[in-house]
């Protein structure tokens, strides 16, 4: 019974924590610009995330090592340092985007000044991480993030063209579009893959597995949480896309402001829906800020061999503590410079996809290595899909920067 509760909580946490500010922004814009034709990218990205997430959890359970230890061993020191710098920078920018997103949503709830809310958000997150046990942190934000399910309920309420939604799961390229729009469509494909496969999620997930001392018997639970949890979370992101296609497109809105997406719940459910959506966004975005802030510290500590872990008291892992506190402080500084959260989201997404190949290559290699994994080595399906998705990530990584500049960050 206890195991079933653990699995259920794990899945719910994965669902509530799936959508962050970047997925929300890109899902809403994808729906209003391209109707249902980008649903398949969320689906494929989620399958890839499930494969890599399961691999990272399995590697953590069997080797007792998190991703960044493996990265250094497999990439060697020089490329490892470059990957570390890339990872820390993208985590920092992403953390800033999530803090900015949270403060923006709090502004819509309270009307208080944005800089004050950014400061209070950062302080609250630092205190929560300092004071609460690791499992409570995960559960708090993951479960409260389930308020985002109001978006899924809205989807049912607004009666979309379900046939069109289903057809959106088929990989497609709308070749009848003018060239400019086709290039922008290509940018959205790359951006959505990046938003779904954000590297910080893998660092956080595998570090948690090592901290909680997962064992081989936990491999099955890991598989369930990774596949079912991420799958259901992805449906939430897709519901935001569908809502945008049905509600925003006819009135010519391509969400340029974070708060616009909350209207997806306000239109069918009024003020109650709006408040549920805004609160859900607060917890989803701040949960993502916690993950990115900690993953930055995990990356540094694991690469350099420091003591690390949220299960340790701050004084038992001092440099790790300094690293995550510094990440939040620097993120707040970035937010207070006045850079718009949406701009931070764009940069986070583009830089993350460039770093992704370095993140997932060591993972696939170790997960395939019988010397490390014994009988828990990749099966033929995991292996094949892993390499196929890795090739997809490499193509996206090469295309990301040119597409970003040509489409002016998807605004073309």
């Amino acid at each position, binding site marked *: 019974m206890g195991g079933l509760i653990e699995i259920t909580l794990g899945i719910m946490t994965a669902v509530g924590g799936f959508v962050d500010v970047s997925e929300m922004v890109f899902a809403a814009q994808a729906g209003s610009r391209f109707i249902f034709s980008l649903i398949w990218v969320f689906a494929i990205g989620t399958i890839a995330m499930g494969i890599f997430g399961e691999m990272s959890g399995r590697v953590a359970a069997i*080797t*007792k*090592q998190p991703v960044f*230890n493996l990265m*250094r*061993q497999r990439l*060697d*020191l*020089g490329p*490892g*340092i470059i990957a570390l710098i890339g990872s820390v920078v993208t985590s920092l920018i992403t953390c800033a985007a999530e803090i900015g997103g949270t403060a923006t949503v709090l502004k819509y709830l309270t009307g208080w000044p944005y800089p004050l809310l950014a400061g209070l958000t950062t302080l609250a997150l630092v205190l929560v991480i*300092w*004071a609460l046990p690791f499992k409570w942190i995960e559960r708090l934000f993951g479960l409260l993030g389930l308020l985002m399910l109001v978006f899924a309920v809205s989807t049912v309420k607004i009666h979309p063209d379900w046939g069109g939604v289903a057809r959106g799961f088929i990989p497609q390229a709308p070749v009848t579009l003018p060239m400019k729009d086709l290039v922008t469509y290509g940018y959205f494909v790359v951006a959505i893959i990046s938003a779904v496969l954000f590297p910080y999620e893998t660092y956080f997930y595998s570090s948690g597995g090592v901290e909680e001392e997962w064992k081989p018997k936990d491999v099955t639970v890991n598989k369930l949480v990774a596949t079912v949890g991420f799958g259901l979370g992805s449906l939430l992101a897709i519901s935001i896309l569908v809502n945008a296609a049905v509600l925003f497109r006819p009135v010519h809105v391509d969400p340029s402001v974070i708060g616009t997406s909350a209207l997806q719940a306000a239109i069918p459910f009024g003020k109650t829906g709006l408040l549920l959506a805004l609160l859900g966004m607060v917890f989803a975005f701040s949960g993502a800020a916690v993950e990115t802030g900690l993953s930055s510290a995990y990356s540094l500590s694991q*690469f*350099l*061999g*420091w*003591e*690390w872990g949220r299960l340790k*008291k*701050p*004084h*038992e892992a*001092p*440099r790790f*503590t*300094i690293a995550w506190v510094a990440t939040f402080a620097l993120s707040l500084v970035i937010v207070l410079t006045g850079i718009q959260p949406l701009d931070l989201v764009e940069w986070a997404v583009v830089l993350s996809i460039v770093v992704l190949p370095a993140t997932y290559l060591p993972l696939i290699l170790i997960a395939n290595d019988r010397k*490390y994994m014994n009988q828990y080595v990749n099966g033929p399906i995991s292996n094949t899909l892993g390499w196929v998705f890795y090739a997809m990530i490499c193509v996206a990584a090469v295309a990301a920067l040119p597409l970003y500049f040509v489409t002016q960050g998807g605004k073309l």
Partner: protein
Amino acid sequence: MKPNGALKLLAEVRDLQIVDKDGKNCGICDDIELEGAPGKPLKIKALLVGPGAYEGRIPKWLFWMVCKMAGSRMTRVPWSAVDKISARIFLNVTGEEVGLRKVEDRWIRKFEKVPTS
């Protein structure tokens, strides 16, 4: 794997996490010091830990950057202190006994003065 067996030095020793006999992390094996002569078997003399050990493994410009940020200290851990090697290098001594964990322990003492930490 015990340290008196044959090892693939680069793949199986370098860049592994070092853990002391109390289970505490003591840095990463950043390089290894060998001894031997032409025609004789190579033996590991010591593990090298610290940014100073990066020299020779990374381009000069990157080593310069690393030293600017983290200094160039290096600690030699004698091979006799190694108990076994698996996914990590386990020592048969405490980190402090072989000169490791100096920075970590200094920060631990500072943090112990902070309330609720």
